[in-house]
C-alpha cells in the first residue's frame, strides 16, 4: 500500500517538475510547481514526518506559491516571449543529463537501506519531537535563521520605502 502511494506521489512530482519547465504560460508552470509541493508532502507523510507534511503544504503550497500566482496575476497573462534557442542547446542538455545520471548512479552504489535505530514511531515526526530538537540541539541555528529572516524583512522595508521628499 505504502509503496503504491509512494510511486503515485513520485510520478506526480516528476510530471509536475517536467510541467514547470515545459509549459509556456507562467501560470501553468506555477500550478505544476504547486503539484510538486503537494506530491512531496505526501512523500513526507509516508516517511512518518507528519509535522513536515502539514508545514510543507502550509508554507510552500499555501503561502510561497500563492505569492507567485499573485505576481503572475498582477503582471497579466503574458506568454513567455521568444522561442530562440542557444546554439548546441540540445546536444549540451543531453550531455548534462548523462553526466547527472552518471553522478546519481555512482552515488547510489553502496548505499544500504535499513531501519533507523531505536526510533519510537509514536514520537518520531510529531510536533513535540521537532520542537524538542529545535529548542535544544539546534537552538543556535534556529535563532540564527530568525535573524536572517529579520534582516530580509528590514531590507525589504528599506527598499520599498517612500522617501519623504518623493511625496
Amino acid at each position, binding site marked *: 500500500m505504502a509503496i503504491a502511494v509512494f510511486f503515485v506521489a513520485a510520478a506526480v512530482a516528476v510530471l509536475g517538475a517536467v510541467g514547470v519547465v515545459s509549459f509556456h504560460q507562467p501560470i501553468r508552470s506555477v500550478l505544476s510547481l504547486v503539484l510538486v509541493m503537494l506530491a512531496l508532502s505526501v512523500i513526507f507523510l509516508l516517511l512518518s514526518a507528519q509535522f513536515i507534511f502539514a*508545514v510543507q503544504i502550509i508554507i510552500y*503550497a499555501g503561502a510561497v506559491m500563492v505569492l507567485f*500566482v499573485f505576481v503572475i496575476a498582477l503582471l497579466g*497573462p503574458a506568454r513567455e516571449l521568444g522561442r530562440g534557442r542557444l546554439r548546441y542547446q540540445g546536444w549540451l542538455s543531453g550531455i548534462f543529463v548523462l553526466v547527472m545520471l552518471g553522478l546519481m548512479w555512482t552515488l547510489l552504489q553502496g548505499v544500504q537501506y535499513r531501519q533507523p535505530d531505536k526510533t519510537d514511531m509514536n514520537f518520531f515526526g510529531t510536533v513535540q519531537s521537532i520542537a524538542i530538537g529545535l529548542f535544544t540541539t539546534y537552538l543556535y541555528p534556529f535563532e540564527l535563521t530568525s535573524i536572517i529572516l529579520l534582516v530580509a524583512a528590514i531590507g525589504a522595508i528599506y527598499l520599498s520605502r517612500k522617501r519623504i521628499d518623493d511625496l
Partner: protein
Amino acid sequence: MNDFYNNAIGHWVVVVVAMALLLFVVLTATAYTVWFERVALGRIQRRPGPNRVGPAGLMQLAADGVKLAFKESFIPEKTDRVIYVLAPTIGVAAAFLAWVVIPIGLWYNVTYWIADVNVGILIIFAVSSLNVYAIVLGGYASNNKYSLLGGLRSAAQLISYEMSLGLALVPTFMIVGSLRLRDIVEYTVSWGPYHGPLPLIILTPIGFLIYVISATAETNRTPFDLPEAEQELIGGFLTEYSGLKFTMYYLAEYLNVITVSTLAVLLFFGGWYLWSVPPVLAFLIKVVIMIFVYIWLRGTFPRLRYDRLMRLGWKVLLPLAMANVVVTAIVLVAVS
C-alpha cells in the same frame, strides 16, 4: 468493533462508509445553512425571507439547486479554460478535505472520525490555505478586470489573516499540550470540587476573539467580503461564473462557514460536552449557535475599507495574538 476496525479490510470499509456518510451529512447541512442564513438575515432586516417553496421555505434550496444546475454553463472567451474550470473544484475539494480530521462525538464514549492524526489542526490549516487558489485562479482565469482585482484582494487578505488565525490558536495548544482535536475537546481540569471537561474559552477568551475575526476574514464574509464587494467590483472573482461552477463556489463558501464554526466549538466550547445532554445533540446546538453568530455578524456590520482591513490584520490582530501567546506562556510557567 475494535477487532473489526483493526482488521485491514474492515478498516477500509469503516473509512469508506464514514466518508460517504459525512459527505451526505455535510452537504445537507450546507444546504440548510444557506436557508438558515437567508431566514435569519431576513429577520434581522425586518423582512420575511424565503417562505414560499415548501413549509417555511425549506424547499427553497432544492428549487435553487435545480435552477442553477440547468443554467447555461458559460465560459468567457479568450480565457484559460482549464484553469477556469479547475478553480471552483479546488475550492470545493479544499473545503471538504478539512472534514477528514474533524472528530464528532456521537454518543457517550462514541466518537466519530475518519483520521485521528497527531497534527489534526495543522492539516485543517494546510487544506484551508489551498482555498486561496480557488479565488485567485478564478479571478485570473475569468479574463475580467473586476474578477482579477477581487482575486488579488483575496490573496492579500487570506495571507494576512492566516497568520493571526494560526497564532490565535497557539495558547490553546500550549494549555492542552496537543494538536490532536480529540485531545483538545477532552481536555479536563480538576479545580477543587469540579472535575470534568472545560471549555477552553474560559482560559483563552482573547484567542477566541481573534479566531472569530480572522475566521470571518478567511471565509470572505461580511464585514470582510472585500473580494466580492459588489458596489466596487460587481461580483469580484464570481463575476464570470454561472451555473454549476458558481454553485461550487457557493457550496465551498458555506462549507467553510460550517467548518470554522465547528472548529470554534471543538477548540473553545468543549465540543460535544454539555452537562448530560446527549453529545451529538449538544454538538449540533453549539455549532448552530456558532453559525448564527457568523450570520449575525453579516447582518449587523458594514464592510471594512480595504486599507482598514489590512491595518486591522497586521497592526491590531497580529500583535494582539503574539501578546496573547507570550502572556499565556508566562502564566503557564508561573502556574507549573
